[in-house]
């Protein structure tokens, strides 16, 4: 059982109490499944990394990988960071605070295998899925927000903001590269884009135990951010991540919010259907470490060369058009990527 088939990425921040229990639960419910857990800790001050090291000693270095980061850099970059170390064919994203129960992971795996799906998402709103610990106000806000999202975006999944999902590795890499939002709008954007790109998506009902009932995690700022995120997704001109017209030059993705030191994710839109090459391409951890925290991190997803010479000749012609476009943009990384296709 050397190379695991499933990689579970756990972004953590101050989860010293919950992390060992979460890992214990994963171990309990995933017996017989080949998996690894990648803990992406954002320099938690409460000693989460020390607990993680103890867990690594207990469960083995093949099963638990600790990949910390220098500071609180956000969820999207935590996912890409974890993704660059993932050895599995499938990636499972979940929260480490015990609101997502690992017992649903085998159900997701079974559904994926049965229908050959690209993405399996946990839903709290359908088929027996539910939430424990929400008062009436919270439920109303949640249902109202969900109705709005369904009405405006027609996303085809019942729970758009959920973050308990299983992805094929290449699919996740593509979606992360294309999505520019922050926080939970990031989750919405990935699912929205996935649906519009035609990926096969399945749903598994989950029970979400919100441990923070009583303490209201939903302030007016969050509602405003949600509305802004919805409007952004409503107005995206080309949500599909696999482009239909390859010779159309691509608009650079817009940024929704402006935190300090935003990671800028640019992508070379020229991806082909052979998306297994995307995962081999560089989501480069060394790039991140060379720049200091707060600097912008550019992640370029670069498809590798096709073997057929006639196709590569056609691509060279197309990429010349792109090179001129990107020359104006003065984007060194994308230019290098395009040049490598040309050669």
């Amino acid at each position, binding site marked *: 059982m050397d190379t695991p088939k499933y990689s579970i990425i756990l972004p953590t921040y101050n989860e010293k109490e919950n992390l060992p229990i979460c890992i214990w639960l994963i171990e309990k419910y995933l017996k017989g499944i080949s998996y690894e857990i990648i803990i992406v800790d954002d320099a938690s001050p409460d000693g989460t990394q020390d607990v993680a090291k103890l867990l690594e000693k207990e469960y083995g270095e093949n099963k638990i990988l600790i990949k910390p980061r220098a500071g609180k850099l956000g969820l999207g970059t935590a996912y890409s960071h974890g993704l660059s170390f993932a050895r599995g064919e499938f990636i499972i994203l979940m929260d480490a605070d015990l609101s997502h129960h690992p017992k649903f992971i085998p159900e997701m795996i079974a559904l994926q295998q049965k229908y050959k799906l690209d993405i399996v998402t946990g839903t709290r709103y359908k088929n027996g899925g539910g939430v424990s610990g929400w008062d009436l106000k919270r439920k109303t806000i949640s249902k109202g927000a969900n*109705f709005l999202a369904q009405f405006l975006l027609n996303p085809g999944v019942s729970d758009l903001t959920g973050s308990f999902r299983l992805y094929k590795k290449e699919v996740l890499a593509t979606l992360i590269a294309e999505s520019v939002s922050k926080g939970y709008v990031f989750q919405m954007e990935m699912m929205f884009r996935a649906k519009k790109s035609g990926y096969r998506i399945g749903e598994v009902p989950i029970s979400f*135990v919100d441990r923070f009932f009583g303490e209201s995690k939903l302030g007016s700022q969050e509602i405003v951010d949600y509305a802004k995120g919805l409007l952004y997704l409503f107005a995206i001109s080309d949500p599909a991540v696999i482009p239909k017209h390859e010779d159309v030059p691509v608009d650079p993705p817009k940024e929704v919010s402006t935190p300090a030191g935003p990671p800028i994710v640019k992508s070379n839109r020229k991806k082909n259907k052979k998306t297994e090459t995307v995962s081999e391409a560089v989501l480069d951890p060394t790039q991140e470490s060379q720049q200091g925290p707060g600097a912008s991190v550019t992640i370029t997803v670069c498809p590798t060369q096709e073997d057929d010479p006639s196709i590569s000749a056609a691509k060279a012609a197309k990429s010349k058009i792109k090179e001129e476009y990107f020359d104006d943009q003065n984007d060194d990384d994308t230019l290098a990527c395009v040049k490598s296709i040309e050669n």
Partner: protein
Amino acid sequence: MASQLIIYSAHVVLLVLVWLLAYTEVVPVLSYIPECAHCLVYYAPFFAVFFLGIYAAFNVIYGVATFNDCAEAKVELLQEIKQARAELKQKRIID
């Protein structure tokens, strides 16, 4: 592929066009409708928005009423946490 905005705008424009045709009597729909129903046609957009609001409200109310409050999930989780903590304490992972 068009954005959702464009798709929705196209639908709205189409519906507004149809309504305008009836309103300005380019299509003589009004001659076939009894007098009392004329105001229905004239104020159709308002009715549309109104019924959309009713639909939204009912959707949310129904959703909240049928909301699945999985209380047993919380109980089960607390149980498992207890079990986990006992085992982890044994393995000296938590104090």
